[in-house]
């Protein structure tokens, strides 16, 4: 067994180009002497801008409207003024203090932080081994890793819930604990796969040099390969952070008591009870969105690379 079938993904090069916002001119014309071309292009441009305006409204209005509401005092949420007449952070204050969003925020930070940390480290270590080290059964094990990508979370719901209620052998009850949540997410096959692919692209010369200097395997990995994998590590850190921060499915299933709720679970629970406290609900929503927005603004190009393999949420 020499090659392992890999899951289908759209061409990476193209996606990377999209990410960098590089030149993409397919369909848009190259200037040429074809008669009627100028007019055709003009029509095309006008259509594009008209569509763009409508779509932009569709995409921006919900977020901006919610943002505006989060700064309104409660009585004002009943009218339809675009901006608050009186700007206030009362919605944020009550969400954070009266309705415990501070605690949910801390829980989310702890869980997303620890999951990201272990996932990046473990996937780099495993990805390096699968890319470079030779050991019997390597291809079979890697095939197993890819196989896990086909097991949907929805199938795992019942067995994982049961396993965490009474953990095999040790009989721990890990439901409603940080540890249980962290354990099932501490490394992801997608991250490991992406790291392996990245390490395969790094030339071997540098490792050989390290080996000649007498560096051991871990030292070579830690001192030589890891620093070279910066972009891949960043992309995976972002992918894992965003995935864990946004997770509702597992948090809602496993973190049952209010003191353990993540921001997403807390936000949903708040909407169950106080649906008409619109300013606080929207403030909580903005708080839940903020970290991902910030990371997205600063590291946009790393996001798209992950899309190809991460698939789509429900």
């Amino acid at each position: 067994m020499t090659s392992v079938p890999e899951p289908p993904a759209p061409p990476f090069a193209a996606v990377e180009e999209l990410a960098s916002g590089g030149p993409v001119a397919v369909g848009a014309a190259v200037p040429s002497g074809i008669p009627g071309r100028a007019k055709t292009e003009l029509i095309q441009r006008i259509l594009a801008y008209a569509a763009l305006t409508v779509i932009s409204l569709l995409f921006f209005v919900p977020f901006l409207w919610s943002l505006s509401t989060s700064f309104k005092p409660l009585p004002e949420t009943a009218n339809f003024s675009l901006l608050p007449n009186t700007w206030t952070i009362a919605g944020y204050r009550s969400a954070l203090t009266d309705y415990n969003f501070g605690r949910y925020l801390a829980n989310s930070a702890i869980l997303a932080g620890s999951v990201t940390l272990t996932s990046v480290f473990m996937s780099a270590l495993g990805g390096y081994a699968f890319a470079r080290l030779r050991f019997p059964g390597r291809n079979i094990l890697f095939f197993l890793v890819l196989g896990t990508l086909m097991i949907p979370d929805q199938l795992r719901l019942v067995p994982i819930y049961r396993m965490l209620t009474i953990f095999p052998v040790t009989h721990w009850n890990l439901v409603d604990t940080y540890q249980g949540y962290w354990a099932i997410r501490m490394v992801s096959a997608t991250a490991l796969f992406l790291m392996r692919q990245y390490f395969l692209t790094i030339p071997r010369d540098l490792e050989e040099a390290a080996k000649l200097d007498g560096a051991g395997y871990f030292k070579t990995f830690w001192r030589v390969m890891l620093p070279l994998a910066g972009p891949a590590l960043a992309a995976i850190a972002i992918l894992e952070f965003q995935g864990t921060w946004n997770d509702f499915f597992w948090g809602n299933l496993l973190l049952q008591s209010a003191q353990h709720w993540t921001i997403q679970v807390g936000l949903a629970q708040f909407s169950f009870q106080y649906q008409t406290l619109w300013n606080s609900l929207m403030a909580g929503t903005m708080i839940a969105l903020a970290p991902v927005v910030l990371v997205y603004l600063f590291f946009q190009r790393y996001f798209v690379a992950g899309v190809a393999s991460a698939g789509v949420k429900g």
Partner: protein
Amino acid sequence: MAVAVPRSRFRRRRRPGAAREALVGYGFVLVPMGVFVLFFIYPMVYAIYISRYDWGILGPLGNVGWKNYSTLWHDTLFRRAVKNTLEYTIWVVPAQMALGLLLAVVVNQRIRFRTFFRGAFYFPSLASSAAITAIALYLLNINGLFNHIFGLHVAWFFDTRTALPAITGLNAWTTSGTMMLFYLAALQAIPTEVYEAAAIDGAGPWRTFWKVTFPLLKPGHFFVAVVSIIGAMKVFDQNYIVSRGTGGPDYATYSVVLYIFNTAIHDAKLGLAAAAGVVLFVVIFLFTIAQWVFFGRQEAA
């Protein structure tokens, strides 16, 4: 004619340090493999095992063979969940594809701030389902902005006729950015010469799109459709949040995954829930295989 080959050529020669390298390799993959086996592969087998038991909250009550599967078949609630999920899928998949393609075509034009718009249209795909659903609850409430703009008076998520369509629209909107990226990649795989040829033939932009671009996007359509179908069958978060976990009003938003969740957590019928999970997995798996076969053939061609 026999060729004399020295035996040693056939014997596996050991590289110096191979044993050590193998040991280190196992060490490096030990924790990830442990996690994958314990929390992915074992649960898959365990799910099938549980699905063959009458299983309460305290543990297995007895092996019932495939009875849980026949119970599912006759369960009106499960049937309702399947019907809702199919109905949702039938509407949301074309909507996601159409929106994704529209976005891709628009941001593939030579327009100003192209990178910005691409980033902006992709953003809802990155926002959490809970946040997006909270925004939808706000905009679509009976006194909300949507009703205000269109002069309507509909409680979208609380009316049996509109709850599921509202979720469909919401998710089509949310996911369209991801579909846009897939379509952009597919659009860029079309060679420029094709458009030049169409222009020489005097085809306008409309005709060029429908007669040239659209058919050439076939692999893209297929990829997006399968991704979209698989995503649609897993629908849960939005249904759970708008209905407070009930799948209401009157089971209008009860999806298959919501059935699995409620059967396992609230009714403590783990065997039945696991059986529903296995059924869902088999259906998703068939679509995954279809995709592998299709793209395997594409690559071979």
